[in-house]
C-alpha cells in the first residue's frame, strides 16, 4: 500500500529521548514493546475465551422463554460493545494525532479499524441468527441493528479512505478527520434511527432480550467481553508492528530489525 518517495521528515516523532511513558510514543521503543506485550494479551484472550465458553454452555441455565438460542448473547453483546468502543478509541487516537502531531497515534487508529469492523460484522451476523428463531426474521429494522449496520459502513469508509490515499501523511490526517466526523455523528445516527424506529415499528416485533438475566449469564458475558478486549489489544499490536516498519524503513533501527529477520530465515 503506502508507497512514496524518500524524504527525511517521513518519520514519526516525538524524539526517543523523552521521560517516562512518553518514551514509548517513539516508534523504535514501541515496536519491541508491542512485540513483547502482544503474546501475553493473546494468551489472556484465549484463556478468558475458554472460561467464557464454559460458563456460556455448561454453567448458565436454559432461558425460560427463549430456550437455548439465547446462548448467542454471549458473543453478540460483547461484539456489539467492542465494535462501538473500538470506534471511539479510533476517534480518540485520531484526535491525539491531529492535536499532538504524533504519527504513531494515526497508525494505532488505522490498526484498530479492521478489528472494529470484524466485531461489527460478528454482531450483525449473530444478531441475524438470533433474530430468526426469536422474532421470526433474520433482519428487522430495529434501532440497534440499523445503527450497527451504519457503524459498519462508517468503518468501511474509514478503511477505504486511508487505503486509497497514497501519501501516508495525507492519508493519516484525512482518516483522522473522517473518524472524528463519524464519532460526532454516531450519537446523532443512533437517536435518529431510534426515533424513526418508534414511528415505524410494527407491533409484531418486540425486542425484550433475556428479560431477567441470571448472574451466571452476566458473568459469561463479562468474561467474554474481557476476552475480546484482550484479543483486540493483541491483534492491534501485531498489526501495528509491520505498519511501523514500513513507515520507518529509512531509519537505522528498522535496518537492524530487518537484518535480524532476514538472518533468521
Amino acid at each position, binding site marked *: 500500500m503506502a508507497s512514496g518517495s524518500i524524504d527525511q521528515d517521513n518519520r514519526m516523532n516525538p524524539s526517543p529521548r523523552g521521560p517516562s511513558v512518553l518514551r514509548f510514543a517513539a516508534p523504535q521503543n514501541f515496536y519491541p514493546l508491542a512485540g513483547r506485550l502482544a503474546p501475553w494479551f493473546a494468551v489472556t484472550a484465549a484463556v478468558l475465551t475458554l472460561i467464557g465458553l464454559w460458563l456460556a454452555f455448561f454453567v448458565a441455565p436454559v432461558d425460560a422463554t427463549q430456550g437455548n438460542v439465547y446462548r448467542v448473547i454471549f458473543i453478540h453483546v460483547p461484539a456489539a460493545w467492542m465494535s462501538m468502543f473500538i470506534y471511539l478509541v479510533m476517534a480518540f487516537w485520531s484526535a491525539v494525532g491531529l492535536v499532538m502531531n504524533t504519527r504513531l497515534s494515526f497508525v494505532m487508529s488505522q490498526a484498530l479499524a479492521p478489528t472494529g469492523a470484524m466485531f461489527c460484522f460478528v454482531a450483525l451476523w449473530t444478531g441475524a441468527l438470533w433474530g430468526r428463531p426469536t422474532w421470526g426474521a433474520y433482519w428487522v429494522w430495529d434501532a440497534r441493528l440499523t445503527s450497527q449496520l451504519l457503524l459498519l459502513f462508517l468503518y468501511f469508509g474509514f478503511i477505504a479512505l486511508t487505503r486509497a490515499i497514497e501519501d501516508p501523511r495525507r492519508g493519516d490526517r484525512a482518516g483522522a478527520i473522517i473518524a472524528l466526523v463519524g464519532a460526532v455523528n454516531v450519537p446523532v445516527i443512533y437517536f435518529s434511527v431510534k426515533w424513526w424506529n418508534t*414511528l415505524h415499528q410494527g407491533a409484531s416485533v418486540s425486542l425484550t432480550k433475556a428479560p431477567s438475566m441470571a448472574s451466571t449469564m452476566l458473568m459469561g458475558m463479562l468474561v467474554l467481553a474481557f476476552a475480546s478486549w484482550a484479543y483486540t489489544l493483541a491483534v492491534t499490536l501485531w498489526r501495528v508492528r509491520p505498519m511501523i516498519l514500513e513507515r520507518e524503513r529509512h531509519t537505522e533501527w528498522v535496518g537492524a530489525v530487518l537484518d535480524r529477520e532476514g538472518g533468521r530465515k
Partner: protein
Amino acid sequence: MLSTFFAVLRRDLLLAWRGRADVMVTLAFFVIVVCLFPFGVGAEPNLLRAIAPGVLWVAALLACLLSLHRLFAQDYADGTLEQLLLSSEPAVLWVLAKILAFWLTTGLPVVVVAPGLGLLLDLEQGALPVLVLSLALGTPILALLGAVGAALTLGVRGGGMLLALLILPLFVPVLIFGAGAVEAEASGTGALAHLLLLGGGLAGALALAPIACAASLRISTE
C-alpha cells in the same frame, strides 16, 4: 472579511452560470430518478402516495451526491484552492461561500421542482409546503456534510465511489427527518418536531462542517 465571502460567492455563481449545462444535468437526474419509481413499483396511486416522501428525498440525496465532486475539483486542478489557502483570509469564510454557491446551484433547483414531482407521485397537496420546507432545510446540511467528504477525496483514485461510501451513512439522519416530516404532515400528525430537528441539524452543521472542511482542504493540498 465579508468582501471575500461575497467575492468568492459571486465568482462561483458566475462559473456555475457559464457551466449551466452541469446544473441542468443534476436537475434532470433528480427528475428521472423520481420518474423511474412508478415503473419499478407499479402505478398504484396509494402505493405511490405512501412512498413519495422517501422517493423524493432519496432522489434529492443522490442528486446532491453526484454533483459534490464538482465542488472543489476545478479549483483543485487549476491551483485556485492553493492560492485561497495561502491567502490571509480565514478559510472558513470562503469555504462557506463556496458551499453556499454550490447549494444555490444544485440544492435550490431541486427544492423548486420537488413539489411538481410530488404531484406526479400523488402526494397530498397539503404536504407540499412541508416538502419544500424540509428540502430547503435539509439539502444545505447535505451540502455542508458532503463538502467535508469532497475535500478529503480530492484527487484520490476512485474518488467518486469513495465519497459515496464516506458520506452516505452520515446522510441517514437527514433522510430520516426530511422524509419523516413530509410523511408526518401527510398522515396528519404534524411535521413541526421533524422540521425543528432539521433546523437544529442545519445550525450544528453550519457551525462545525466549514471548520472540518477547511482542515480537510489543508490536508488534501499539502
